[in-house]
């Protein structure tokens, strides 16, 4: 990302404010309005990947040991992973101010 949107003048955007570099949403922190965060008890994780597959925002990452980590910069706290997890290892925890 060359420049943050909030620093750009109206002259600096592409025609009709189209996004011309695909995938650029990863560059923006969009998880900061989450009210609950998913937390995993990895001792119960069976590495099935259901949380990874069910995340609508691609905010779950494969870790080196085959378990999964949460990308809290993009996770919106929807809770789908916690609902879908086969072993119930993911719980939703209140965000603290």
């Amino acid at each position, binding site marked *: 990302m060359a420049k943050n*949107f*909030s620093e*750009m*003048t*109206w*002259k600096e*955007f*592409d*025609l*009709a*404010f*189209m*996004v*011309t570099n*695909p995938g650029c949403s990863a560059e923006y922190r969009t998880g900061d309005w989450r009210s609950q965060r998913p937390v995993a008890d990895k001792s119960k994780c069976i590495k099935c990947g259901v949380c990874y597959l069910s995340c609508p925002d691609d905010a779950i990452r494969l870790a080196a040991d085959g378990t999964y980590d949460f990308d809290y910069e993009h996770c919106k706290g929807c809770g789908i992973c916690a609902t879908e997890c086969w072993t119930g290892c993911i719980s939703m925890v209140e965000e603290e101010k």
Partner: protein
Amino acid sequence: MAKKIGIEVSLAISEAVKLADVDAIAAYPITPQTHIVEHLSELVADGELNAEFIPVESEHSAMSVCAGTSAAGARTYTATSSQGLALMNEILFIIPALRLPVVMTLANRSMSGPISIWNDHSDLMSVRDTGWISIFAENGQEAFDLTLQSFKIAEDHRVMLPINVNIDGFTLSHVIEPHEFLSQEEVDSFLPPYDPPLQLNPDKPVSMGMVGIPEIYFEAKKAQDVALVESKAVIKEIFQEFGEKFGRTYNVIESYRTEDAETLLLTMGSISETAMEAIDMMKDEQGKKVGLLRLRLWRPFPTDELRELVKGIKTLAVIDRAVSFGGTGAPVGGEIRSALYSTEDRPYVASFIAGLGGRDVTIKDFMDMVTLAEKMETEQEVHEYKMIGVRE
């Protein structure tokens, strides 16, 4: 000069759209616009026009399809009237925001209710602030010529905005007039194929219609407004080029016998033809110092040109064909007062509303409006607007 052909104005517009070799048409029939798209569907069915004609279940869908085809890089056309335009409303805002050069004929018809299929300008005025370029034709030849020019204006990379070409419903749409057509070769020499600067294309993907968070939305609207304002220079350039090529020159405001005039009428659309008759009679038979301005470009509003044309004029009588209910002026009259307010030696602006819902505006009406406007000027009458021709 080419031979003149007697044909219904709606069909002449269809022929212009065919000559423009559009790729996609999405439309829903509504009186008095129906003949235009009906004829286009025939041209497509008969293989005379190689385009997708997409029949839809409503005008909301028609304009939505137009957004899609135009975004995919297709030269796109539609037409509607009145309630149909109202049903398109949501998408009408999207098209210019996405900078899609859709061309639409608007066969102007009164908004209901009471239900009226007849002509005034209340439909266009209801979508005034959607961000489209709005052009008025006052006869069939102008409708034909302006349709062709609109594709070139809309698709110019300096513009990239949609255009509605306004023709008065029935008064033009259903009337047979002599038209001088252009040949396919002539049109091709004037109108190049559409070359979208950005489009939906898997080879170079883009995202259109993104969320405008508060940090972006304001800038988006500023850019859109500047694009519309700056399109005026391109419109004038293309009007000029068309005139040089084909001998019919258009201006953003047309003047008719304004020399020595102290009072000017200002009109939009087909009533201008009657107004010209009235001006001729007042000038030639009564020796009155009158003239006529015909507003061709409604958006972007030709403010500078207006200020120049009314220099030295004592009284300007503006005739609207729509009401801004409870407002401080009729749509055009109020706009013109606003455009002139900060200028020195501005004329007195009398704002009249006439010809609502297909009510005829006669030569006598124009003469009466000149007399009344001059009296109001003498008395410096403070007013918002007056309705002319309504039974009191």
